[in-house]
Structure formats: structure tokens, C-alpha cells
């Protein structure tokens, strides 16, 4: 195929990517959108292979098959609760691929300085994305400590790395060659920088980081596109870049923190919340059942604990029993409940919870005082009233679901431990709060058993 034809096909592929993303905007068409997007990818790959400049197919075929098999197996086996780790790993692969594409582009003849700069960008961003993503994966899957790793001279060290990276980049661009020692320095430093940038960020902030890294992997693809004069890389890459930045922004807003705060300061270190004291009123499953049986309206408020306990199926079962019992059942979803935007939606969708029972924070809060029982399932920060009341709290100002204003609140968790933010929760001491201790799945299952028997 001629270069012109190939590029015309790239235009088609780009249009399909765009259509695909457009259709991803509504649950009814999202599956089709994803298909279109993958079709676009297939077209882009296919026409590239038809390029007459491609000499050897064996190597490519082997590499592609290995990659596809690894990807497919991982995708089939992953638990829905481990999506963040999964995205981190895939993202890392994309990053290292961009690094290598940039590197390989150095072997082309007659690169202009502009091309060299874009090659370097693709190497640096790709490298950072790779090592950062791997570290994020490590923290999330608890292969390593998920705590923020902070040490004294960190800022100085990071500044040093950054300066070194820039210096080596400039030196490389002044005399670009594939054997340049500066090239290796740039690669090493960008990998190191990715690690150092993610180290001081706590495990629970990882979703923000992953979303940001996702955006970077798009930018790396963009840079690679400039390096090899390729349209489709730029179009697709910038879509990804935009998606990552928008999602990062949404998460930061819902957590009421700035991106800078997420990236540069270990969480909670800033302020000390007012100490919370009071009486805790535990409850057992039998009593919880009696109250739920009498309730006219019940709202479930799921959080990260539901994901950990994999309680979504049994929650749906309880919801159905309550409905049969005549209660109005809703699921109130906080935008950053769980560890990814939309995390709870995916889990509840998996458990077949009907769509129209999900309500957003803005919709439930005005009518929460008419709710008889709010059942908080492994959520903590997203229902912490100190975000509303306590100006000293590190999470002050974060919008929450005001379950404390419901008639009765059940909190299902295993201990009095705090959630992601490490902040104490006065909700647990509220007059209308009953703590149902234990693993969320077992607790709910016990209530369900009462209903059935």
C-alpha cells in the first residue's frame, strides 16, 4: 500500500476511535463503543503491516502473539476489585513500548533536531510512565509497602534527578547518536524519576496517580507520533491524554484536594483532626434484621470495604429481600467511593443491581432525612461528617453522603479502624449509629439468613 493510502486508513481509524469514545459515553452503547475502538486499533495495526517497508514478519508475529496472549489471560483472570492494579500494569507496558519506539526511532537516518526532541520526549515520558506504573502496581497489590515513603532529602534528590535528566537530554540533543552515553543516562534517569515521583505517594492515592500515568502514556504516544510523523499516534494519544487528565481532575475534586497536594505531600501529615470520643453502640445481625424489616426506605452506601469483602452479590440479595418486604431500596454512590472513579458502579453492575436504583450523592443528600436506615457497607471517608463539621480535619470540605442525617445508620466494618485518609470518623459515635462489626460479606449474609429463616 502506498503511504498515502496507509494514511487515509489512519484517518478512518482515527474516526473510529472518536466514534468509539463517543459511544462509551452511555451505558447503552458503551459495549459497541469499545468494539469500534478495538476495530480502529485492528485497522491501524493491519494497514501498518501492509506498509511495503516492513521487511520481516516472523519477529513481529511472535512478539505480537506473546503480547496478545499475556494481555488476554490477565484480562480474563483479573478480579473486578483489582482493576486499578490491572490498569497500572497495562499502562506500564504501554509506557515501556513508547520508550522503545522512541529509542528505535533514533536508528532512523536524517532525524532533524525537532525529531530528536520528540524522540527524547517519548523516551522520557514512556520511561517515567513505565517505572511509575510498576511502582503503583506494587503499592496497590501490596507486593511492597503501600505507605507513602518519605525521607528527609527527598525533594533535593528529586530536584537533582530532574536537573540531571534535563542536562543529559540537552547534551544528547546537541550530538544525537544511538551510542551516546547520554541516551543511556536519559533512559536510566527517567526510569528513576518515575520511581521517585511515585514513592512519596500513599497507596490509597494510587488511583489518582494511575489516572495521571494513563494520561502520560497517551502523551508518550503523542510524542512518538511526532517522532515518526504519524497522525494516528497523535490523535489516539491525545484522546488518552485528555481522558486521563479529566479523570484525575474529577478524583481530586471529589477528594477536595489539589493535584499538587496529592503528588507532593504524604497525606494527612498537614493537620491534626479534632479528637473524636464517644460511646460506640454495636449491634448484632439479629437486631439489625428487626430494624431493617420495619424500615420503609433503606439506602445502601457502599465503599471500598464492599470491594474488599466482595460483598456486592449478597448486598444485592439483601436489597431484593428488602424490596419484597415493601421497602424502597436505593444505592447511594459517592463519586470517589472505592479506589477508582465509578468503582462501585462496576461492582454493583457485576452483581446485577438494577440501574435505576443507583443514585448519586447530589440526589440522595436532599432527601436523606427521609431514609429510615442507611446501611454503610465498608465505606468510611465518604460518609465522614467531620468533612462537613470539623474545620481541623484534613478532609474538611470534601463533599460526603450525609448518612448521619438518616433516621438510623448501620456501619458495617471490621474494626474501629480508619479508612483511606486515616482520619477518625465521628459517625461511629453518633446517637443514631449502630456498628455491625465483621467482614461486610459475612455480616450481610447473616442478615440475609435471618430474613430467609
Amino acid at each position, binding site marked *: 500500500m502506498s503511504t498515502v493510502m496507509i494514511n487515509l486508513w489512519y484517518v478512518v481509524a482515527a474516526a473510529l476511535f472518536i466514534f468509539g469514545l463517543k459511544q462509551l*459515553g452511555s451505558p447503552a452503547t458503551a459495549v459497541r463503543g469499545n468494539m469500534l475502538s478495538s476495530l480502529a486499533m485492528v485497522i491501524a495495526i493491519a494497514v501498518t503491516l501492509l506498509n511495503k517497508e516492513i521487511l520481516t514478519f516472523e519477529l513481529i508475529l511472535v512478539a505480537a502473539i506473546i503480547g496478545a496472549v499475556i494481555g488476554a489471560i490477565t484480562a480474563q483472570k483479573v478480579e473486578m476489585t483489582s482493576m486499578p492494579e490491572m490498569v497500572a500494569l497495562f499502562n506500564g*507496558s504501554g509506557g515501556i*513500548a513508547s520508550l522503545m519506539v522512541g529509542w528505535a526511532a533514533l536508528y532512523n537516518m536524517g532525524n532533524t533536531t525537532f525529531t530528536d526532541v520528540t524522540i527524547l520526549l517519548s523516551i522520557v515520558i514512556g520511561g517515567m510512565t513505565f517505572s511509575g506504573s510498576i511502582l503503583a502496581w506494587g503499592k496497590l497489590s501490596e507486593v511492597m509497602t503501600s505507605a507513602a515513603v518519605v525521607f528527609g532529602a527527598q525533594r533535593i534528590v528529586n530536584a537533582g534527578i530532574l536537573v540531571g535528566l534535563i542536562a543529559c537530554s540537552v547534551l544528547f540533543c546537541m550530538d544525537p547518536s544511538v551510542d551516546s552515553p547520554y541516551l543511556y543516562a536519559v533512559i536510566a534517569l527517567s526510569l528513576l524519576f518515575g520511581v521517585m515521583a511515585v514513592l512519596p505517594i500513599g497507596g490509597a492515592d494510587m488511583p489518582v496517580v494511575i489516572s495521571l500515568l494513563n494520561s502520560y502514556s497517551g502523551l*508518550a504516544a503523542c510524542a512518538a507520533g511526532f517522532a515518526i510523523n504519524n497522525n494516528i499516534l497523535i490523535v489516539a494519544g491525545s484522546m*488518552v491524554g485528555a481522558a486521563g487528565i479529566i479523570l484525575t481532575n474529577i478524583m481530586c475534586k471529589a477528594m477536595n484536594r489539589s493535584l499538587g497536594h496529592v503528588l507532593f505531600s504524604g497525606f494527612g501529615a498537614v493537620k491534626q483532626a479534632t479528637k473524636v470520643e464517644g460511646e460506640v453502640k454495636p449491634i448484632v445481625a439479629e437486631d439489625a434484621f428487626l430494624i431493617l424489616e420495619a424500615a420503609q426506605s433503606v439506602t445502601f452506601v457502599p465503599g471500598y470495604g464492599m470491594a474488599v469483602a466482595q460483598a456486592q452479590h449478597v448486598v444485592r440479595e439483601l436489597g431484593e429481600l428488602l424490596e419484597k418486604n415493601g421497602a424502597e431500596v436505593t444505592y447511594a454512590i459517592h463519586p470517589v467511593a472505592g479506589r477508582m472513579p465509578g468503582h462501585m458502579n462496576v461492582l454493583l453492575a457485576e452483581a446485577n443491581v438494577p440501574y435505576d436504583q443507583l443514585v448519586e450523592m447530589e440526589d440522595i443528600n436532599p432527601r436523606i432525612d427521609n431514609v429510615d436506615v442507611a446501611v454503610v457497607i465498608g465505606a468510611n471517608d465518604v460518609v465522614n461528617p467531620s468533612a462537613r463539621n470539623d474545620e481541623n480535619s484534613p478532609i474538611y470540605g470534601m463533599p460526603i453522603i450525609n448518612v448521619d442525617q438518616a433516621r438510623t445508620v448501620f456501619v458495617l466494618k471490621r474494626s474501629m479502624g480508619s479508612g483511606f485518609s486515616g482520619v477518625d470518623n465521628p459517625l461511629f459515635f453518633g446517637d443514631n449509629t449502630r456498628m455491625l462489626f465483621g467482614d461486610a460479606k459475612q455480616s450481610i449474609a447473616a442478615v440475609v439468613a435471618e430474613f430467609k429463616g
Partner: protein
Amino acid sequence: MEAVFLAMVLMLSIFLGFELISKVPATLHTPLMSGANAISGITIVGALISAGGEAGAMSSYLGAAAVMFAMINVAGGYLVTNRMLSMFKKKDTSQTGGKS
């Protein structure tokens, strides 16, 4: 001059990306994240060009490795997104349908 055309394409794509993605509802943010992630595997196109090109063995090997990694991203990303979205689908059909 080509670079300028690419800059125009970049500018348009960024705007378009923001328009499209800011319309995606919160419900679909996780699939959006993994779907976008799959698209970032587009760098495979660059990898293929390097892998099959005539710029020498080293370039080919780097390219082939890049093909493998990018393929993980592409295949894994699309499949996992599809798995997730199918769940959403199921729910719709278990309903009376027509709900979007």
C-alpha cells in the same frame, strides 16, 4: 512543515478529546479509564514500523519488544473493558430495557 500539520492535528484532537470525555457519566468512569488505557497501546503502530524497518537489527529488536509490550496493553485493555461493560449490559437487559 509536516510537524505543523501534526501540531494542528494535536490541537484538534485534544479539544475533541476533552469534549467527548467530559460527557462520559460517572457510572462509566472505570471502563473509560481502562478503555482509554487500551487506546494508549496505539504506540504499537510505531513499534511495528521500527520492528519491520531496515534501520538495523537493534532497531528491529527494540521494535519487536515494543510490539510485545504494546500488544499486552492493547489486548488486555480492550478485553478487560469489554468484560466490565458486558456487566453493565446484562443489567440493562435484566431490566425492562430501553433504560440508558
